[in-house]
């Protein structure tokens, strides 16, 4: 009996993502399913004032991309060592949009994500990204709280 065939784990590299990553990897192993680890980078708006584009903006963006991809590769390496088939997806844009898009494209049948990333304050707030993904995802979503469970 196949439970899940393709699992997607979006990460923002925060502590809140870590328990979700471990769950995702363990489920991928148990289901013999490949795991896709997605990071969505939200580029800062270059428009600071009246059409002023800092000359260093392109350079900053390149550095940010490089750094994000390096961190994603490090996550992949850790998962791969546990014997799970894993690939990286890198996207730029609004996290919830890109997570939903990546899930459709990869035909994921499970999304495993932390319930609050960097903006979470208490257990009563799910985190706006997770909340939108839970509402709009066509496939099941496993939400893993960062603390306390």
């Amino acid at each position, binding site marked *: 009996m196949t439970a899940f065939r393709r699992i997607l784990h979006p990460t923002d590299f925060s502590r809140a993502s*870590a328990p979700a*990553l471990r769950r995702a990897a*363990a489920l991928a*192993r148990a289901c013999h399913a490949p795991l896709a680890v997605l990071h969505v980078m939200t580029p800062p708006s270059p428009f600071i004032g009246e059409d002023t584009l800092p000359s260093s903006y392109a350079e900053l963006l390149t550095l940010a991309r490089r750094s994000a991809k390096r961190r994603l590769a490090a996550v992949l390496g850790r998962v791969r060592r546990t014997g799970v088939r894993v690939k990286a997806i890198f996207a730029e844009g609004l996290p919830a949009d890109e997570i939903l898009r990546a899930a459709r494209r990869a035909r994921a049948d499970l999304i495993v994500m932390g319930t609050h990333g960097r903006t979470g304050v208490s257990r009563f707030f799910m985190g706006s990204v997770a909340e939108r993904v*839970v509402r709009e995802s066509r496939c099941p979503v496993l939400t893993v709280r960062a603390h306390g469970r």
Partner: protein
Amino acid sequence: MGAEPGAEDIARLLVPTDFSAGSERAWAVARRLAGRLGAELVLVHVLVEAPLYSEGPFTMKRARDVFEAARGWAVKTLGEWTSTAAAAGIAARWVLRTGVPYQEIVGAAARERADLIVIGTHGRGGLDRALLGSVADRVIRLAPCPVVTVRDTE
């Protein structure tokens, strides 16, 4: 990957049901997952008692009759759903509670020491998409374990 519990430690799945299409999909997902993980399923339904008991003896009797009929139907349906899992060789049992659904679900997850909750949501598009389903929403926020949400529409 650290010492955090993984799929290997998922021994019990709690599946709340209101017998809707969304819960039925959640039950199907839970059955597949339990089959793969060798986990036990606990199906839980929460009856909401009709608040009519101060309307005099006649109404009270009628309200009780309605409530008992609802309870009887729930028991029968829980049994039927549970047997679909048992027929596939998956250990399954049901629990019937009375009260406020999200509180009873979170309480049952703690009492049963569930490792995972699998719950259906009312995933509507357009204007209604703000309505995740207040039960699922609260369960996600307050559950003692991770929660899998399953939308009722494909």
